[in-house]
């Protein structure tokens, strides 16, 4: 039914071991016991058919071994990350700058070779790195600089807001702090490591040869670092579904491989020399790009292709992408949970599993040119397989993505090859940089101008999530591909059954059936919020001023384009900061503040209502107990939302929602249930469980993970 592809099954076992280790810890090993009856059934069947079962059992043992190694390697990685102690105090820190990023009004430094001196005078030398947010003019800080200072150190946990903290674990960053540049001492350190030196050289020649906008796009395409791009420009690329050009992957590696291989072949370099030279060059390029999972995946696939071509073996693309995934996961099993890795593998696997089959079907359409059919099948199959990941991680998928990818990617591939070649020449001869890069940068400007002028944020598919139903989606894709050899009737029956199951799961996942009112509680590093929905009314309660990108993602995921009522439970200055952030993302019917609060209403585009006494959020009665404390009667349930400590007399409540626990607050309102945003031992928190949904009906508040 499915052709035997050993590397595919091995890679699958390894990944399954990692996933189950994440989900159930050491209990993952008990899953192997489930294979015993399967093994027994295989032995009996093979004995009856008088065939040897040794080979099958041996391969099954190999799969089990990979499963166990996957599970164990994940556990070891997480334990190593958590081995460095938890810190939440002011420390004197010293570290070497290994990465620099830019964000709004601050620079983000990554410090390694850390030395921390705690308040008690204890000196720690953790293996982990630290992220330092620096405010002020910090242009003198370079990679390799030694930075010293003192600040409040906070610790990243392995699990935060219900998700594995993959970026912190993968980058080895355990701590974070912030400081003003005046409070830091900066000295020159070691010479740059070679990869950083090459990146710096590329950056210097590009930014000195053309305007910063074009240079930042070219730099992002070359090395996969979009940190220098304008945030709005980058977001527009994301809305258009074409931001993957800034993740060095098959497109980039393929172009360089094509150029190098073609050049060496033309120079009649022997195959046994050509292969290692091309491999070394691609490996070096991956190093310059920071060995991102997408670049490593593309490198491995390219290497497998070269070896198969040189050795005369048939090249199987599914085994190739499986081998690439196995290599990346063996380097670090946490990559399984990285969005970049998931998208990279899903797109490549989608093209392999579905693209060829779709291409052959489209080729039968007489009026479609063959190259167009091929391009359409590749773009469509990549879209299909990345769809659930994009929806669940970013909250949206561009409705224009397929068209833009068809039109834009071929053009940008050609421009990329010119940018790559001439940037290398310019890096060797910087004095000629402006001349060498004039034409490539001009072509890049022409290619990206339509993207930068259009607003792709208007045509987004959003407002739902896949969750576990994504497995059914991928099973359906696999079943309808030509990788499963079934006759037409079983295939159609199976596909129909999967479609029905997928539909049912999606409805159950996204619709609170039987509930006329639902509240959701959300938090992340960028903000804390509660959304109350009753019939058509949507009320938003913010606990502090949110990060704009966090709020935008939240609204996309929740399908919110308008808010009937906005309340910000925070000091007046933060309320003033929060309102424009919300107005940027959605229409707001009215903002409610407590009468007598020190809030300056300077807003012309939204009605600000000062209330004294009960008011209504749609059909839900509410009352400010204090500036940042709100009582809400949600279908008969007394809910208290506390943005900060208060001395006000509070009613007894069924549910308390607050940033953190305090004895005084719990005594004041005697809650039956509590939800906190920050990590709270022994209590339900959004930090531990992720976003929560509260379904209120018939005397019960059902609290479930969203």
């Amino acid at each position, binding site marked *: 039914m499915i052709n035997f592809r*050993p590397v595919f099954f*091995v890679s699958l076992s*390894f990944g399954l071991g990692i996933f189950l280790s*994440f*989900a159930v*810890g*050491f209990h993952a090993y008990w899953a192997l016991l489930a294979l015993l009856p399967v093994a027994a059934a295989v032995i009996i069947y093979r004995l009856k058919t008088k065939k*040897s079962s040794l*080979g*099958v059992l*041996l*391969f099954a043992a*190999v799969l089990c*071994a*990979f499963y166990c*190694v996957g599970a*164990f*390697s994940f*556990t*070891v*990685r*997480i*334990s*190593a990350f*958590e*081995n460095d102690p938890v810190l939440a105090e002011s420390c004197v820190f010293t570290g070497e700058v290994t990465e620099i990023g830019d964000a709004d009004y601050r620079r983000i430094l990554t410090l390694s070779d850390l030395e921390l001196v705690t308040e008690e005078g204890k000196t720690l030398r953790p293996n982990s790195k630290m992220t330092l947010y620096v405010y002020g003019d910090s242009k003198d800080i370079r990679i390799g600089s030694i930075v010293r200072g003192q600040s409040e150190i906070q610790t990243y946990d392995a*699990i935060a807001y*219900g998700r*594995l903290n993959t970026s912190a674990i993968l980058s080895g960053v355990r701590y974070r702090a912030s400081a003003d540049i005046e409070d830091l001492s900066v000295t020159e350190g070691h010479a740059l490591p070679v990869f950083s030196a090459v990146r710096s050289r590329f950056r210097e020649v590009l930014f000195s040869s053309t305007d910063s906008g074009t240079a930042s796009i070219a730099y992002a395409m070359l090395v996969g670092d979009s940190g220098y791009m304008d945030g709005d420009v980058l977001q527009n690329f994301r809305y258009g579904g074409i931001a993957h050009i800034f993740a060095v992957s098959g497109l980039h590696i393929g172009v360089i491989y094509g150029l190098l291989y073609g050049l060496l072949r033309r120079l009649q370099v022997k195959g046994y020399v050509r292969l290692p030279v091309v491999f070394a060059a691609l490996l070096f390029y991956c190093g310059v790009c920071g060995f991102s999972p997408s670049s490593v995946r593309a490198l491995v696939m390219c290497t497998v292709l070269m070896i198969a071509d040189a050795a005369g073996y048939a090249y199987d693309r599914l085994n190739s992408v499986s081998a690439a995934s196995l290599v990346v996961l*063996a380097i670090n099993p946490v990559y399984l949970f990285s969005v970049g890795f998931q998208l990279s593998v899903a797109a490549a696997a989608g093209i392999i599993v579905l693209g060829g089959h779709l291409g052959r079907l489209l080729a039968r359409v007489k009026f479609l040119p063959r190259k167009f059919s091929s391009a359409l099948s590749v773009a469509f199959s990549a879209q299909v397989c990345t769809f659930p990941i994009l929806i669940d991680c970013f909250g949206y998928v561009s409705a224009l993505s397929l068209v833009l990818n068809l039109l834009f990617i071929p053009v940008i591939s050609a421009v990329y090859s010119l940018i790559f070649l001439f940037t290398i020449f310019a890096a060797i001869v910087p004095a000629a940089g402006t001349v060498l890069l004039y034409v490539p940068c001009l072509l890049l400007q022409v290619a990206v101008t339509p993207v930068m002028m259009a607003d792709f944020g208007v045509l987004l598919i959003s407002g739902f999530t896949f969750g576990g139903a994504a497995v059914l989606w991928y099973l359906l894709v696999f079943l309808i591909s030509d990788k499963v050899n079934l006759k037409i009737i079983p295939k159609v029956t199976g596909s129909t059954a999967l479609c029905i199951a997928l539909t049912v799961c999606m409805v159950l996942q996204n619709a609170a059936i039987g509930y006329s009112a639902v509240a959701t509680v959300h938090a992340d590093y960028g903000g804390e919020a509660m959304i109350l929905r009753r019939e058509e009314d949507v009320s938003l309660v913010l606990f502090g001023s949110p990060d704009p990108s966090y709020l935008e993602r939240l609204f996309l995921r929740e399908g919110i384009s308008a808010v009937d009522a906005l309340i910000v439970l925070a000091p007046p200055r933060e309320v003033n900061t929060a309102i424009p952030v919300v107005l940027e993302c959605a229409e707001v019917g009215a903002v409610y503040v407590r009468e007598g609060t020190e809030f300056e209403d300077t807003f012309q585009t939204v009605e600000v209502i000062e209330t004294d*006494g*009960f008011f209504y959020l749609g059909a839900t*009665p509410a*009352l400010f107990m204090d500036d940042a404390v709100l009582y809400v*009667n949600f*279908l*008969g*349930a*007394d809910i208290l939302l506390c943005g900060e400590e208060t001395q006000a*007399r*509070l*009613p*007894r409540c*069924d*549910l308390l929602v607050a940033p953190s626990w305090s004895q005084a607050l719990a005594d004041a*309102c005697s809650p*039956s249930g509590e939800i906190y945003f920050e990590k709270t031992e022994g209590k*339900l928190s959004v930090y531990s*469980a*992720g976003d*929560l949904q509260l379904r*209120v009906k*018939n*005397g*019960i*508040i*059902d*609290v*479930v*993970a969203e």
Partner: protein
Amino acid sequence: MKVIYRISIFLLCAVALIAAAAVLPFLAPPLRGEGMVYGVNEQIGYDGTIAVVVRGESVRRPGTYRVPYDSTYADIFALAGAKTMPPDLDPDAPIGFSDAVLVGDIFYIYLVL
């Protein structure tokens, strides 16, 4: 069959290499045994009633009543035996919170006829 044996031996060697690469640098720290998925399925019970105080000369049974949240003015006045309905109140409307007062730690809705 020989192909399967060769592939299996090759893969077993690969397993050993991966295991060595994954495990050897990190033998020191204590290993985390529990899973990292935090399941949530809590239920919080609530009363679902509101406290309404009905007073006035035209009320036969003045006092404090606990009624379901979505009760209407007609419901409460029927319970309290109100002889007349105030003209400014819609009898079919849900009892509003505009007259609610916090007494102790409970909100009471005062209706004085």
